[in-house]
């Protein structure tokens, strides 16, 4: 892949890009991904897993900017969306104009289109980092999203552009009509892109992106043009976002304004941040959790966005390194062999913690039901229990439960903190 090209200044590399031991987890992932459809056979599960895979690639591409390059973008959906639109047009050319192109190669062309567009925008947007970059990305994002409604020829207006993936030449006897075939194609591209992005982060260019993120001036003094480093990261990110767009086109066979707009750009920022920007696996975890919550939680509650927003704010406030950061925090006690010290306080915390979360969400659900449900429909069910949402006693019980467990949590937190300090304490060598 062209993006794994090595920078001339750093061509004397002693270490290989990846060692056998580092490759081992990837092998496990490949086996795991190929076994998944055996466990989850339903079409909906396949659709949701495909959606997760697309979001993972997109989030990883986004993290090349935010996590590795320190560039905050509010319009990154544009590159994924444009790659996707281009792929649907290619699909239609395959169907109607007899273009010969096997479907599995389509995402690569989506990537190229994303790359071309990133090259154009990057020439002026990457000149500066920080707020200027962020605001230019916002402006460009709004402009492209707005023109998607206006330029009907390419974007198809509000109804978007749709195609049919099964019309191309058969590849290995597959026509990709079934969800399962599409799943394996998606998984293939997921592994390829994730591996390529991982390798990119280990090239000298990838390392320099980190250096520029941390201190622009110092990187300049070392002889690197901060602008060029940002530009290369930006283009690579656009390329992988375009690949995600191509896979989206294959999965959903339709692209609309939604794929370009600010909401999509914003949610990828939330996903990446939720997972943890400082880690390569962060966006992966963020994408899985977010897609899961968005698709499944919304089946059960109308106010799922309230929960998602709360979860997100709490993450930013208490775990600025995201969910992955929360896990990574425990590596040190683990290495010190003191992880066992934490088990007991965690378990003690678990019961009031779970009760607190459940009772608080019950309070919200009951209040929401009482306020918005139909007259006569006072009955509601929650966690398998049915009850009347106007019952004062019930309100009191839930209220007491949530306040009580919250208070207990606050008290127990002291013990957890002590245990945490203890577990992270290194005995001074005498």
């Amino acid at each position, binding site marked *: 892949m062209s993006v794994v090209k090595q920078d001339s200044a750093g061509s004397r590399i002693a270490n290989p890009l990846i060692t056998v031991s580092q490759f081992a987890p990837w092998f496990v992932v490949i086996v795991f991904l190929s076994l998944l459809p055996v466990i989850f056979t339903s079409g*909906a599960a396949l*659709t*949701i897993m495909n959606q997760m895979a697309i979001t993972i690639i997109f989030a990883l591409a986004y993290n090349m900017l935010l996590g590795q390059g320190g560039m905050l973008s509010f319009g990154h959906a544009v590159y994924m969306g444009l790659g996707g639109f281009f792929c649907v047009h290619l699909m239609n050319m395959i169907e109607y104009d007899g273009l010969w192109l096997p479907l599995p190669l389509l995402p690569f062309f989506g990537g190229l289109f994303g790359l071309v567009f990133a090259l154009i925008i990057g020439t002026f947007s990457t000149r500066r980092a920080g707020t200027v970059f962020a605001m230019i990305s916002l402006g460009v994002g709004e402009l492209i999203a707005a023109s998607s409604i206006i330029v009907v020829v390419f974007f198809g207006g509000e109804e978007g552009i749709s195609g049919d993936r099964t019309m191309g030449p058969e590849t290995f006897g597959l026509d990709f009509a079934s969800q399962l075939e599409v799943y394996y194609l998606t998984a293939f591209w997921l592994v390829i892109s994730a591996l390529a992005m991982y390798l990119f982060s280990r090239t000298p260019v990838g390392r320099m992106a980190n250096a520029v993120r941390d201190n622009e001036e110092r990187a300049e003094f070392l002889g690197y043009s901060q602008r060029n480093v940002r530009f290369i990261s930006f283009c690579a990110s656009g390329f992988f976002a375009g690949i995600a767009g191509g896979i*989206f086109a294959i999965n959903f066979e339709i692209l*609309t304004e939604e794929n370009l707009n600010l909401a999509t750009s914003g949610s990828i920022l939330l996903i990446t941040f939720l997972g943890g920007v400082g880690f390569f696996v962060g966006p992966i975890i963020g994408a899985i959790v977010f897609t899961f919550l968005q698709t499944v939680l919304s089946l059960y509650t109308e106010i799922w966005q309230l929960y998602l927003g709360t979860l997100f704010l709490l993450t930013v406030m208490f775990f600025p390194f995201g969910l992955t950061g929360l896990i990574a925090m425990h590596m040190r006690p683990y290495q010190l062999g003191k992880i066992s010290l934490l088990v007991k306080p965690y378990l003690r915390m678990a019961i009031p913690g779970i009760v607190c979360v459940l009772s608080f969400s019950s309070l919200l659900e009951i209040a929401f039901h009482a306020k918005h449900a139909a007259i006569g429909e006072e009955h509601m069910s929650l966690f398998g229990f049915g009850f009347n949402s106007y019952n004062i006693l019930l309100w009191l019980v839930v209220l007491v439960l949530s306040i009580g467990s919250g208070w207990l949590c606050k008290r127990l937190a002291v013990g957890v903190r002590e245990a945490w300090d203890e577990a992270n304490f290194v005995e001074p060598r005498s």
Partner: protein
Amino acid sequence: MKKLTGIILGTVMAGMLASTAIAADNIKIAFIDPLSGGFAATGQDGLAQYRFAAEELVNKTGGVLGGTKFEIVPFDNKISPKESLIQLQVAIDQGIRFIAQGNSSGVAHAITAAVKKHNKRNPDKRVLFLNYSAVDPALTNDKCNFWHFRFDANADIKMDALTDIISANKDIKKIYLIGQDYSFGKAVAAAAVKYLGQKRPDVEIVGNELHPIGKVKDFTPYARKIISSGADAMITGNWGSDMVGLGKSMIAAGFKNPMYTYYAASTGITKIFGADGKGPLKLVGEGQINPPASDRADAYAKAYKAKYPDNDLGQPRIANVIEMLAKAIDKAGTASDMVAVGTALEGMEHDSIWGSKILMRAKDHQAIQDVHIFGHTDEGVAHDFDNSGFGLKVENTVKMASADSATTCKMERP
């Protein structure tokens, strides 16, 4: 770490998906519309009307196929085409064979294309798409297919009826067209130009413009322009906050002439216009609620309000969807063979609870029905909207509007 999270989440996901798929004997109808986000008010209203119609019109009268009941299963599509396709897949996985959707023609296009492909690829799990609100004419013209049925009058039909009324009014000599810049807004404008040209060539169209959808903060400049053009009437297909913004600005700027709209009612809009809208505000649509067409219709509307005091009967056609589907299932004798149910629905004639006769035209699956011009008023309104005392009252009716209109649909039957 990643793997472990994956396994845990995957197991939970599988469990949750499985638990929703409890096999029951009810005939399930998937309601895929926005239930959260900015358009949720309309979606929630539609859901309440579906639930009520299924309960009152089918389940309480003995069900279909000798006792089987209807059940509405809501899916939140967040008005996103992508989410709609995911929820469609979830619905199909749960064994649901009837899909109801209405909000946004863009979503309807995505669903009708997906349903067509799904039915071709999975002949044993075919589904029917009951479109109760998306009115882009293309859905029953170029983009039509056997699995899609539209129960609302499309944008062309409504405009045909509206221009019948306008051409009878000799006071109207100048008309201003304004709409949202997307497929539906453009369809409304094109239909208005076409029909006015045929019926009243002397009427001058003094303005025909589109504004970005959902992006205009203040409609005052548009209102100034319309008033300065000397228009005797305005036609708009705007909905949601674009309708509120435009209408309020027009009234504030002193426009006293008729404003013909498609969607200026219910979900808070009627309450906001209140006394200001009485007189200028008109609406074209189906489903006569005021004055009630019959005692049965009156009782139905009263019972609905008693059960859902915060919701309105904003989309009366939903009652037709439920009744006609029940009839088709009974006629076909099955609720699992979609070809049979679809064939039974084609060409069906039905006497609506709202007084109109309804014909599901076989050549394009477009329902032909009476289309009314309503006035926004507080006089003689038995059933108001938004509990505001104001509501829609029929002023003119076009019987079986556009019954012989042409279609470009080439229906391919399985």
